[in-house]
């Protein structure tokens, strides 16, 4: 293979991308070396098994991916602003909408939420770490290496261009030759290992490691939504794993599962993809619902209205999420009866979702609302998400869907639910728990600027797209006709508004790091209701010096009333903690090499990487490190300094 086949050539934008990658990498290497930070990086981050640090790394990576996916979006909106734009050609546009979708769902939304779960859930249930800390580190590194593998595709080998749904036969070997589509398959496969492991990890953590006395129906709602999400992950992700493996066999080893010529069935890909894909939608929305519930209850200063109804609604949504997948391809032609069944099951989902909307409204009703930035994101969510939900019911009517399908109406709908749901929740949750993670708040004034730019930009961007869709504009076109121009110009202006909002957000992070007041107490917002606010800030690496006995909902409200803390000097015992390890990082680095080999079909590299990965697993199997104990003296010293005693 020649070098010019290996690197993507001929596109000025991609050359600019290569230069910036080289510059940023060189700058990072220089800074790490100049300030002698390599040891620090390895000891504090690459080998950590601390759920709080892993959560922070997840969130930072997700923000980087939000930037990448957002840059893709702005390029698309530029191309679509005017008819016959020559900013991107058809091929490049196809690659960009494919990577935009994949990056945003798999490498932004999920890791962002998993990052927040990592930081918050063990603190909320009074645990000192997750059930399997080693596995947790492994999850993160598998996600990061998977994301990196997917992201290098635009400079090496070429990006996938068959849409994030990657339908066969278009995505098959015959119609998409070359490494592009393999990047999609292997990037998702590698990061999928981590997602599945995270699902198992949080399931066990929440079921087995709650504070003494905490019953299931006393768990904070975010913990509940994480538990249910974990169940969906464990049940849904194997379907994706199998589908990706089958398509890899098709593309790399000449199998015929999804081909037309060799007795395969291309429609089976769509079927399997959405059997995972629909539950996936709920994997990224249920934790978001959990975050909104926590934020709204905290800043409305009330107990969550209808807690039990909320929990049952989440469980019901999770169950139904496995029974609606066909509504993504009504137009495939499965027939009126099949479509009717799935149309009805789809509409059923609106019922528990509606229950939740009323829960939030009920919580807000007659409350004294503290209008912080976190709360504003949550309040903006409710009406925006309802618009997305109502148009979702329209799309769920199978016969009407023949009109809406693959039009901008659909594009507007899923951005209304995914941005107003998931992205607003990510911002809301990040602002809300930021002081717990970093020891200072984000500047509220700047935060409001970023909020208004983003939310107004969001509506200006996506509301016109409903009408563009009704005017017949199909999705995934790289150029528009003059009739669609006014709506598209408005939409592009809105997109850049969101870009400004994000830029202000990043500036807020830097500004707050320098100027925000450092936190003195653990209860940053004064109205904390759940156990994470009972810990001091910064949170000691063992989280809880003593774990309180829980016998009610909103555990911290009760503790505050009783004047108790998580530091009871008389009850101190040595704390058993897991040791740091570099194994997960190294194991996933080897599997990254193996996946890269599969992408280019260099079997020697794939086999060598796989063998090295298996060797790492064998080493892990015979690793008898039992962790270490934190002595009472050290706990006393840490607690006294963080609590200012």
């Amino acid at each position, binding site marked *: 293979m020649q070098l010019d086949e290996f690197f993507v050539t001929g596109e000025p934008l991609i050359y600019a991308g290569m230069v910036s990658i080289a510059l940023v990498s060189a700058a990072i290497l220089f800074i790490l070396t100049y300030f002698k930070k390599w040891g620090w990086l390895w000891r504090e981050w690459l080998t950590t098994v601390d759920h709080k640090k892993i959560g922070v790394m997840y969130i930072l990576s997700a923000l980087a991916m939000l930037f990448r996916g957002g840059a893709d979006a702005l390029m698309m909106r530029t191309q679509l602003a005017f008819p016959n734009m020559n900013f991107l050609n058809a091929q490049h546009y196809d690659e960009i909408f494919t990577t935009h979708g994949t990056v945003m769902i798999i490498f932004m939304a999920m890791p962002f939420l998993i990052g927040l779960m990592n930081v918050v859930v063990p603190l909320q249930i009074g645990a000192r770490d997750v059930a399997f800390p080693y596995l947790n580190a492994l999850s993160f590194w598998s996600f990061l290496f998977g994301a990196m593998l997917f992201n290098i595709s635009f400079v090496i080998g070429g990006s996938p261009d068959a849409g994030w749904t990657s339908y066969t036969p278009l995505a098959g070997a015959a119609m998409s030759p070359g490494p592009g589509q393999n990047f999609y398959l292997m990037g998702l496969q590698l990061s999928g290992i981590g997602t599945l492991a995270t699902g198992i990890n949080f399931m066990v953590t929440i079921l087995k490691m709650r504070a003494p006395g905490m019953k299931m129906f006393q768990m904070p709602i975010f913990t509940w939504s994480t538990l249910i999400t974990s169940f969906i992950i464990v*049940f849904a992700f194997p379907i994706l794993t199998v589908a990706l493996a089958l398509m890899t066999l098709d593309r790399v080893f000449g199998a015929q599962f999804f081909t037309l010529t060799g007795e395969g069935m291309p429609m089976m890909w769509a079927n399997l993809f959405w*059997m995972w894909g629909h539950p996936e939608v709920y994997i990224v929305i249920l934790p978001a619902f959990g975050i909104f519930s926590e934020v709204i209850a905290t800043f409305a200063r009330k107990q969550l209205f209808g807690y039990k109804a909320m929990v049952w609604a989440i469980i019901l949504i999770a169950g139904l999420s496995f029974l609606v*997948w066909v509504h993504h391809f009504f137009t495939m032609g499965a*027939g009126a009866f099949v479509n009717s069944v799935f149309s009805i099951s789809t509409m059923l989902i609106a019922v528990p979702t509606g229950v939740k909307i009323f829960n939030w409204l009920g919580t807000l009703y007659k409350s004294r609302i503290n209008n912080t930035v976190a709360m504003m994101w949550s309040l903006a969510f409710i009406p925006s998400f309802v618009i997305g939900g109502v148009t979702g019911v329209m799309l769920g009517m199978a016969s009407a869907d023949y009109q809406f399908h693959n039009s901008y109406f659909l594009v507007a709908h899923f951005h209304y639910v995914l941005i107003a749901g998931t992205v607003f929740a990510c911002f809301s949750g990040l602002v809300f728990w930021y002081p717990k993670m970093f020891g200072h708040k984000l500047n509220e004034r700047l935060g409001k600027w970023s909020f208004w730019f983003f939310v107004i930009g969001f509506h200006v961007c996506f509301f016109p797209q409903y009408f563009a869709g009704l005017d017949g504009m199909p999705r995934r076109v790289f150029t528009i006709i003059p009739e669609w121009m006014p709506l598209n110009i408005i939409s592009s202006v809105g997109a850049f508004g969101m870009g400004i909002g994000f830029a202000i957000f990043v500036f807020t992070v830097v500004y707050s790091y320098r100027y925000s007041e450092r936190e003195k107490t653990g209860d940053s917002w004064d109205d904390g209701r759940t156990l994470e606010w009972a810990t001091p800030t910064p949170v000691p690496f063992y989280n809880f010096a003593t774990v309180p006995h829980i016998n009610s909902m909103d555990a911290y409200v009760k503790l505050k009333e009783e004047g108790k803390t998580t530091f009871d000097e008389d009850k101190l015992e040595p704390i058993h903690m897991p040791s740091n390890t570099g194994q997960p990082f190294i194991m996933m680095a080897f599997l990254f090499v193996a996946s890269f080999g599969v992408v280019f079909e260099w079997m020697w590299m794939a086999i060598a990487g796989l063998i090295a990965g298996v060797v790492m697993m064998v080493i892990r199997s015979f690793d008898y490190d039992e962790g270490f104990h934190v002595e009472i003296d050290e706990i006393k010293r840490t607690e006294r300094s963080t609590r200012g005693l």
Partner: protein
Amino acid sequence: MAEHNKRIPMQHVVGFVLSIALTLLATWAALGSNLSTTWIISGIMILAVIQAGIQLFMFMHVVEFKSQNGHVPWNMMFHGAVLAAIIVAGSLFVMSFGFTHDHDGDDHQQHEQQEDDGQEQHDEGEHEGH
């Protein structure tokens, strides 16, 4: 404390080797053997059941309820079975619109056949509606 754990987990090693062997056997049956399609399919299904048994008994917790204070996770196994049923039955249901690899007839005939099926299902739907 760690001492009694320091032994090779024979059960897992045997289970691992067996599951790899069964996979290779199934691959051989599909690619390398001269058996008829019926025999290949039923053979692979039998191998799959054995494979599931290996997973449940050698790796999962079906036999561990005595040593731990726990119990057999019937609940989770039930949900797994329900999901498997949804995947298999659901796929058959969704794909039941008459798509065949019709080597004998030409494209036109296949198209017509699909049309007929669609008509039938349409009638059925209307009938239930009344």
